[in-house]
């Protein structure tokens, strides 16, 4: 009756397999639950007034237009500073630096930087950019703080992208007489561009979702910038992002606003996720070629 071909199924193994499947279902159920709950509770508060006005007791409107604009400001300014610096750092590490203690120190500190909790970045930003440099609670303070936070993300993604560029490209360019910077600019950066873009998109995701680092740096202003010079002045004024407004609404028990913002945030997260997927697929195609 018993044959080595007959697999004996142990009861304990069945239990373990069941546990494994259950654990895997936890993530799926959580995600589905979160999406359903947030959308069902919040979709009702999302309408045109909500998206295009600011909260005002005078007009009787509840809106997050100011917060949307603030979020955009912070994304743009942070990326304007962090992207060049992050890419530059990656180019230095990958192309210029000789392997040694210095490179290890930079890589170690980049690692440390990505491990520091955002609330500590917030404290540092509040003291250094806010008080010492005197920017106060402003969009600029918030952006500078976030720059430090997302720097490791952009550096690491660019580094990975640069590593995938074949060495023959480098020797080819140098052999044809290109100087190093010329080679970096015309050969390496274009080849590494999809990887760099992925890093930038991930960074946008981080910025949109960030709250603890912004609470004490960018403040909680919710007004729209004034036209004309106000657009530039806004940079030095307090501006709360969507997440900050969500937190404040939640603390004030204005749950319909909170869920409305949560819907918008989830939609942004879904878009960014799809975008990174798309970029990853393009990267794979490039690699295959």
């Amino acid at each position: 009756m018993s044959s080595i071909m007959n697999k004996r199924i142990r009861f304990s193994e069945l239990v373990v397999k069941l546990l494994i499947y259950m654990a895997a279902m936890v993530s799926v159920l959580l995600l589905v639950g979160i999406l359903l709950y947030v959308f069902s509770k919040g979709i009702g508060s999302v309408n045109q007034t909500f998206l295009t006005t600011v909260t005002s007791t005078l007009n009787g409107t509840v809106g997050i237009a100011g917060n949307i604009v603030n979020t955009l400001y912070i994304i743009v300014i942070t990326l304007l500073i962090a992207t060049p610096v992050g890419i530059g750092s990656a180019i230095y590490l990958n192309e210029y630096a000789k392997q040694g203690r210095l490179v290890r120190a930079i890589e170690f500190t980049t690692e440390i930087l990505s491990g520091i909790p955002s609330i500590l970045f917030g404290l540092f930003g509040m003291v250094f950019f806010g008080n010492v440099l005197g920017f106060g609670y402003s969009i600029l303070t918030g952006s500078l703080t976030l720059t430090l936070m997302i720097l490791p993300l952009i550096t690491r993604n660019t580094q990975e992208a640069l590593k995938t560029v074949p060495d023959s490209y480098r020797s080819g360019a140098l052999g044809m007489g290109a100087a190093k910077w010329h080679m970096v600019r015309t050969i390496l950066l274009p080849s590494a561009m999809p990887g760099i873009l992925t890093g930038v998109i991930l960074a946008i995701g981080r910025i949109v979702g960030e709250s603890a680092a912004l609470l004490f740096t960018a403040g909680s202003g919710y007004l729209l910038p004034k036209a004309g010079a106000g657009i530039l002045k806004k940079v030095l004024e307090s501006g709360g992002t969507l997440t900050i407004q969500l937190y404040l609404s939640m603390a004030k028990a204005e749950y319909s606003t909170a869920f409305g913002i949560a819907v918008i945030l989830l939609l942004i997260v879904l878009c960014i996720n799809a975008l990174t997927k798309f970029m990853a697929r393009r990267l794979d195609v490039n690699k295959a070629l």
Partner: protein
Amino acid sequence: MHEKAAFPGMEMRLKVKEQDSFSIIGSRRTVSMVEKTAQGIFTLCGFLAILAVASITIYMLINGTPALLHVGIKEILFGTVWKPASAEPSFGILYVILTSIVGTTLAVCLGVPIGLLTAVFLAETAPKRFAAVVKPAVELLAGIPSVIYGLLGLMVLNPLMYKLELAIFKNSQTHQFTGGANLLSAVLVLAIMILPTVINISEAALRAVQPQIKSASLALGASHVQTIFKVIIPAARSGIITAIVLGVGRAIGEAMAITLVSGSSVNVPLPFNSVRFLTTAIVSEMGYAAGTHRQVLFTIGLVLFLFIMVINISLTKILKKEDKGQ
């Protein structure tokens, strides 16, 4: 100077004529200037990470130590009474520190088994079609902003916890009811939030195990489950430890998700007590704190910073060991 070129190549000749001497490497001085500037800028960018970490460390120390000298190290770190705003203020943060340690430990104990099993599922047992559902779900969970976890904790978990609390402490005279905002709610939120980190890193570790080891185990007659738990997981040990350490870092540093969920008073970290973590103390009080109170909040930040540094440095130690092992 630039006449319209009559035939292709003529423009080139005109340009050549303009220069005194023509060299195929161009004018050396400008090229080397550009090169040097480029290299200088890149080097500077590289140093920025060192500069940032150094200045964060220095600022945390500068702002965190005055209170320690002022109020006393023992009074702050081992004091249990937190009354920063009363007439005779007391700044003991022992319970806050303990809450962070206990909360993080519990969250990791809860999140790591689920995360590890999910990683096993993704790397070993999942049929392709299931994996194609679970993997994106994990990625999305990682991307959800922490305030949304906080909102859900507040709206979903806290009412449930309150029901549980009412049932358990029905006859208790001494229990202070928290309305569900307690340590347990915060632990659950944290456990959920560290899941993606634990899953992704342990999955990568499990996949990196050499296939020969697995085949050898199967060939010796071990079942798949035995192979997973007795061979593959031990072989991926260092990667899994990395996952756990990163999970600890994530849990101890999380602030906004648990600020409202964990309650608002400093207490002994018991499951149904309203508690303050290192992070939530900063978030909820920094807005209005002044004077010594504010300084002590920076001391709390310093304590958190030291925890994170210990975690980070032990992580690099683990990774170094792993490198040597291979």
